[in-house]
């Protein structure tokens, strides 16, 4: 289920056999992927999976130990200067000058992108307008909200309308409303034909924005495909129940297995979230099996607080691939090579 390879001209980003170690930590252990021109690739994985390392190599900030990387048709290792003129990078922290105003920031970055002062000013105005920051154009960034700062950061990487944009966890730390705002802005960008490589820990984000998803863990690609392809790997729908607290979870588990087993093959186990008293099982019967399931749960004496059928989420994908949820993984490996 790999990304279609349409030849060099179609791929805006090519990564082959990329390796990078920091001391004894193997951040990238031979990863390969491509981003088709005009599409969004979501590089999905927990903290320390190697996403940021890959982006740093692709944006010329880091040299790999081995492998080949090409961005916008340019060999990154051979011509880093040309790559820099053709990419935009928005990192995890909004990398803009706090003490300058929004307008001053964009003019400065524009000039550093080699624009004439006049062009840089004109472009700054356009971008501030486009990102809804015109009213705040002449205020220092200290007065900006987190969401405004990220938008300005993104605007700074779009000054020369580069064909390839790298967004390294663009919404980490944003509140849901600002996150939605960023998603809209990124979606507009993609609609304009820009190629985007997006790293994220948020499965929802990859699901929403990415045409293709590459799942990385411990510096390796462990899966790739569209969100739908990844989800269909896990079979069909799932049955999720919540039981009242104090319920015997193992009884609930046995009952769910019986229910799922009676309607077809059970591929996968019952996932139990003990804190939330929630259990989930692959459920091939879908909506037609629901009445029967309810009867059996009732017969077993289980007191339900909620029951739902749902399509597998990317969280389920991650759990199936690594045996851990993305959150557990992130907790376990914080401080692991970023």
């Amino acid at each position, binding site marked *: 289920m790999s990304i279609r390879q349409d*030849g*060099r*001209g179609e791929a*805006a980003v090519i990564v082959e056999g990329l390796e990078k170690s920091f001391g004894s930590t193997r951040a990238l252990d031979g990863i390969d992927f491509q981003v088709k*021109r*005009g599409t969004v690739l979501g590089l999905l994985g927990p903290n320390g999976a190697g996403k940021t390392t890959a982006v*740093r190599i692709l*944006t*010329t*900030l*880091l*040299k790999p130990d081995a492998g080949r990387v090409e961005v*916008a*048709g*340019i*060999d990154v290792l*051979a*011509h880093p*200067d*040309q790559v*820099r*003129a*053709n*990419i935009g*990078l928005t*990192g*995890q*922290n*909004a*990398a*803009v*000058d*706090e*003490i*300058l105003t929004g307008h*001053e920031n964009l003019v*400065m*970055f524009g*000039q*550093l*992108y*080699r*624009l*004439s002062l*006049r*062009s840089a000013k004109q*472009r700054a105005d356009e971008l501030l307008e486009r990102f809804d920051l015109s009213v705040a154009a002449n205020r*220092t960034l200290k007065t900006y909200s987190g969401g405004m700062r990220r938008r300005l950061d993104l605007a*700074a990487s779009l000054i*020369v*309308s*580069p*064909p390839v944009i790298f967004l390294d966890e663009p919404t980490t730390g944003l509140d849901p409303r600002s996150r939605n705002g960023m998603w809209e802005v990124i979606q507009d960008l993609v609609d*304009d*034909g*820009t*190629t985007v490589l997006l790293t994220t820990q948020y499965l929802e984000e990859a699901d929403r924005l990415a045409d293709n998803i590459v799942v990385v863990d411990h510096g390796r690609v462990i899966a790739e495909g569209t969100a739908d392809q990844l989800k269909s790997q896990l079979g069909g729908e799932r049955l999720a129940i919540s039981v009242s607290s104090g319920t015997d979870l193992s009884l609930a588990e046995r009952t769910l297995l019986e229910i799922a087993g009676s309607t077809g093959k059970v591929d996968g186990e019952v996932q139990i979230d003990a804190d939330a008293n929630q259990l989930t099982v692959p459920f091939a019967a879908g909506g037609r099996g629901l009445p029967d399931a309810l009867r059996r749960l009732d017969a077993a004496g289980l007191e339900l607080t909620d029951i739902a059928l749902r399509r597998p989420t990317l969280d389920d994908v991650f759990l199936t691939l690594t045996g851990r949820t993305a959150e557990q993984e992130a907790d376990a490996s914080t401080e692991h090579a970023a």
Partner: protein
Amino acid sequence: MSTNTLPAPTTAPEQRIATSPDLDFVRRSKPVSVVSDSLILAKRHLMRIPRQPDWLVGVTIMPIMFLLLFRYIFGETVQATLPPGVDAVNYLVMGIIVQGIVFGAMNTGLGLAMDAKEGLMDRFASLPMARSAVVLGRILADMGIAIFTTTITILVGLLVGFRPTTNVGDWIAAIGLMLLMAFVLAWLGAIIGLWLKTVEAVNSIGFTLIFPLTFLSSTFINPDFLPGWLQGFAKNQPFTLLLDATRGLLTGFPEIGNSAWMVTLYLLIALVVLVPIALRMYERRLTQ
């Protein structure tokens, strides 16, 4: 928005392919872009200063405070270490100027540590700009600040009795030496900033290293009056040589001797050593 077009496979990589038809790009040779990018970043730093009251206090109030404290509290003490006919105010003003330049160099380190912390260094490194301009722009700005601080110190000094020579040639030589010292120290400050990495560490460790050096010199008192075992170092270290040279040029005491040539030699050697180290540390800082 413009349509982005990627090259056909045959496109030469030298061609820039970001397409923004209505944008006006400036072509510059590499050395020219080092200078122009440095100036863009120096402008950035200078724009920041008036908006940061704490920095403004550091570069204006502090030298004035030091000058007034020493002039009116330790003036008599300093006077006692000087030969008859040499005025303590003349002696002190020069010392405060050099101390201001030394402390100012720490701003270079602080600024770089701050840029690294805020992720700006990464962004600069991803732009098609001259990389060394990040360090050089910072240093140019700090030179500007050094000139500002020195000017203020001289003006306040004149108000409280500083009576330097009016010989233009001597002034040019003295200012040249002080700027050279500021330039060299800024590279040292850059190294400290890139080495210690955090703003807090630069503040505490940087100043702890630099502070005693300014006192173990002729900054505030005639080193003839220091304990004997300290005199050898205090009389020959670069700060003292710079002070001897600039005092000799502007106030006639001490004798200038060959201190001007010695300090110029020291500073040029230091520059040859420090610049490549700082630039290499900057490159390495990026790849960590």
